């Protein structure tokens, strides 16, 4: 059943360092360590496996599985990452066994009576989250897969007990798990019975970036760069070299930044995410962007000192100085075994480190730049550095019923049979129903549709003309049920009301309206004078012995175009 475990070639590389076995069907790695025992049970399921509508379901399972442990002195925790979920604890052998047994017992039979409480806890947790790079996944991947970490856990609103149970039964299985223990033997008394299932590979990555390297606008005070690179010893060393280079260029030499650092973290079996970050004083933001671009260019050009490589290599090699090397490496080996990535023995890793050249690092720098996504503060451009702005608008619009914004008459909401679209002066924002990642629904009729590409349209019936319950029903009927997230009722004061209408007059310069006013006055005056003249002539002819009625008609006919132009000018001026 556990095919990968019995494909033990890669585990053989760890002989003498790490032992392996199977505990109740769960592949298990163990290696001795002085003192207390640490154990980790890791599952190949995480946020990237969810959808926007079910986002948070893995996190919910993790919380429910740990609930029964309550307030114990044991040092334990759970963590839900993009591609995996980890339960871990440190303590005496008996404590760790009790922990693992409790987690697995809970996974077999989740305390779903706690569901609503845990959902609320997760919603509260979410409010405190969000780092400087929290928006980059959304821009890179859209509202799906690895992009979901940018989003709130929408599933914490209306996931049902059945959904959560089914998720646990299919993802938290013995075939989708690896256990590791820092012990010279598998402890007695373990009961980690889990349902059978299958090993799920990490999800394939989606892309919301048509062109890379790309850039997006972000918050003031932060510059962030990320790139997806092939996992390798060179790439992980490069991250350290990049961090040091940024620190040197932006902090030590320039004094533009306080923090400047880089990080390498695995995404799946094949790829890792390289992230570089620098903060900035308000007046130095332009220099931080420029310095960031130049540091990356320097590494890409291969201007990397041998001493930079040597320093990072020496630091990396230090991990092998630890007395319980096998135990220290267990979490990483377990994760790679779970993801299906090769297991590198310390000797192999050392050999790869020693063979690294600055040319290898230059290659990683080039690969990273080619795939790069840079977040610049405020509304700065970065196209000067060869980066392309990530899409700000959808590529297409839709037809359907048109509903003008009650706040800004340049904006029109379109509700069609294939999707919804917001037409704005900058371009359209469109969510086709068949590519809708999630639609939140309020009892008052408000709907927010988020497309798989990350574009979102909010339909507030109070803010657009003619959005009747029938139109909302048409949207509800077209959006796939799996994408619908029912949200609670809002307090009346939370339902938005149109702000003061932004009429066209506010936008166009006074000068152009001046022109229309002048034209209206000129033509209007001529029309009035000619009308008066016509009336006088008519009166005179009427009093004459032989009225020349054809002349009177002729005069009045000339008045008609004048009146028409006056009317048109009046209308045109009003629209300015």
């Amino acid at each position, binding site marked *: 059943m556990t095919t990968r475990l019995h494909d033990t070639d890669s585990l053989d590389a760890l002989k003498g360092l790490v032992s392996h076995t199977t505990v109740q069907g769960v592949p298990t790695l163990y290696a001795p360590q002085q003192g207390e025992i640490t154990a980790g049970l890791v599952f190949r399921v995480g946020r990237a496996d969810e959808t926007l509508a079910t986002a948070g379901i893995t996190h919910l399972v993790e919380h429910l599985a740990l609930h029964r442990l309550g307030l114990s002195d044991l040092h334990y925790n759970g963590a839900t990452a993009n591609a995996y979920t980890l339960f871990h604890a440190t303590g005496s052998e008996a404590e760790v066994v009790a922990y693992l047994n409790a987690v697995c017992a809970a996974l077999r039979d989740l305390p779903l009576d706690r569901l609503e409480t845990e959902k609320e806890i997760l919603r509260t947790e979410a409010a405190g989250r969000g780092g400087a790079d929290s928006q980059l996944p959304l821009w890179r991947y859209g509202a799906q897969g690895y992009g979901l970490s940018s989003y709130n856990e929408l599933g914490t609103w209306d996931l049902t007990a059945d959904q959560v149970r089914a998720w646990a039964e299919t993802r938290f299985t013995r075939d989708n798990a690896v256990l590791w223990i820092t012990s010279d033997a598998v402890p007695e008394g373990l009961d980690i019975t889990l349902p059978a299932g299958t090993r799920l590979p990490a999800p394939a990555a989606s892309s919301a970036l048509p062109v890379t390297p790309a850039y997006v606008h972000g918050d003031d005070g932060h510059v962030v760069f990320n790139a997806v690179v092939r996992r390798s010893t060179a790439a992980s060393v490069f991250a350290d070299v990049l961090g040091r280079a940024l620190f040197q260029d932006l902090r030590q*030499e*320039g004094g*533009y930044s306080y923090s400047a650092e880089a990080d390498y973290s695995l995404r799946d079996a094949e790829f890792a995410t390289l992230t570089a970050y620098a903060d900035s004083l308000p*007046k*130095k*933001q*332009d*220099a931080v*962007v*420029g*310095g960031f*671009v*130049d540091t990356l*260019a*320097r590494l*890409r*050009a291969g*201007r990397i000192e041998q001493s930079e490589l040597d320093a990072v290599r020496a630091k990396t090699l230090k991990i092998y100085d630890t007395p319980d090397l096998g135990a220290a490496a267990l979490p990483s080996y377990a994760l790679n075994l779970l993801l299906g990535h090769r297991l590198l023995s310390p000797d192999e890793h050392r050999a790869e480190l020693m063979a690294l050249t600055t040319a290898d690092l230059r290659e990683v720098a080039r690969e990273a730049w080619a795939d790069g996504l840079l977040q610049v503060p405020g509304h*700065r*451009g970065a*196209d*000067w*550095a*060869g980066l392309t702005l990530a899409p700000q608008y959808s590529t297409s619009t839709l037809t359907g019923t048109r509903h003008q914004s009650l706040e800004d008459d340049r904006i029109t909401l379109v509700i069609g049979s294939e999707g919804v679209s917001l037409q704005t002066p900058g371009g359209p924002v469109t969510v086709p129903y068949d590519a809708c990642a999630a639609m939140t629904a309020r009892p008052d009729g408000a709907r927010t549709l988020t497309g798989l590409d990350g574009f979102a349209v909010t339909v507030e019936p109070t803010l657009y003309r003619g959005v009747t319950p029938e139109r909302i029903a048409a949207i509800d009927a077209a959006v796939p049920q799996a994408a619908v997230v029912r949200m609670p009722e809002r307090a009346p004061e939370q339902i938005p009301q149109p702000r003061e209408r932004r009429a066209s007059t506010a936008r166009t310069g006074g000068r152009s309206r001046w022109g229309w006013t002048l034209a209206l006055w000129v033509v209007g005056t001529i029309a009035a004078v000619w009308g008066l003249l016509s009336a006088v002539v008519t009166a005179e002819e009427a009093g004459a012995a032989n009225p020349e009625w054809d002349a009177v008609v002729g005069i009045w006919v000339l008045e008609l175009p004048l009146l028409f132009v006056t009317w048109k000018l009046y209308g045109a001026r009003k629209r300015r």
Partner: protein
Amino acid sequence: MSSTRSGSGGRPTETGPGSDTGTGSRSGSSGPSFDPYETLPELVPLRSAARQGHWPAVQAYFTSLDSTEKVSYAVGLLAETADVERMLEKAVADRPADPLPRTLLADRYVRIGWGIRSDLRAKHVSQEQFDQFHDWLRRAEQILIDVCAEQPAYAPAWTVRLITARGLSLGQSEARRRYDRLTAHHPHHYPAQMQLLQQLCPKWGGSWDAAHGFAREAAAAAPDGSHAGALVALAHLEHWLELDGGEAGAYMRGLPVRDDLRFAAQVSVLHSDHRAGWYGIGAHSAFALAFSLGGHFEDALPHFTALGDRASDFPWSYLPNPKSAFVKYRKSALATL
């Protein structure tokens, strides 16, 4: 060849990329020459090589130059040569690792872009002109990012990057960072100082405090006899340009400005250690013009004497008729004898 800054129809105030390497064909028997190929005849082989599209000769010419300052001057001058980009694009393709052809090509792209933008104030430039201008500058900038990454001590590339930073509105702190990267290797590179001074003026997002402060600091920090003192004169000329008629004249006549100019001239172009160099004509021109505008003709005299019949396009192009102004002011200066 025509100047990119022919000042017909008023004061062109948003100075383009040019330093004092303008190539106006204003030679004549009575007045001064503004043509660098006439005022500095040793530049003629460069022009001949460029006109023939003969890259090896261009390269040999640059190799023969004995200072970074001269290289920057010659880069700026060659970049003003019409159609020179054809030769340069080929040279870049043939020697992709060589910083010189890439820097020359980038500077040429900057001039092409600035030619489209014109030197008019931003409000008189159309959106389409701006788009094309920015396109050319981005092409230049991307070449220069690589050159500076590979050769961080290559002053001519950083100097052009100060121009792209300005044209692309990359901000005060970014321009300053570029200047600081350059000064780490070349602490007193006058061509770059002239570019940064432009950036520090209010018209490019700076302030008068920043512009005058930088000019004074650079002048004070430079070795005696260098050109840097002329930055003080250029800063005052920029300030004068921003002021209205009456106010402008009063500003230049004021004693603080005069004393500032006198001190700057003493430590730079009038110092016994001063060696003319190719920027000397521009530096003396700055002092001659600044003193003349304030009516300090006695102070202007040594500068006119040093210039003889030679002048530089910049900063004389800040006047509607540079040649007649030069002649008029020189006459007044000579009358003080």
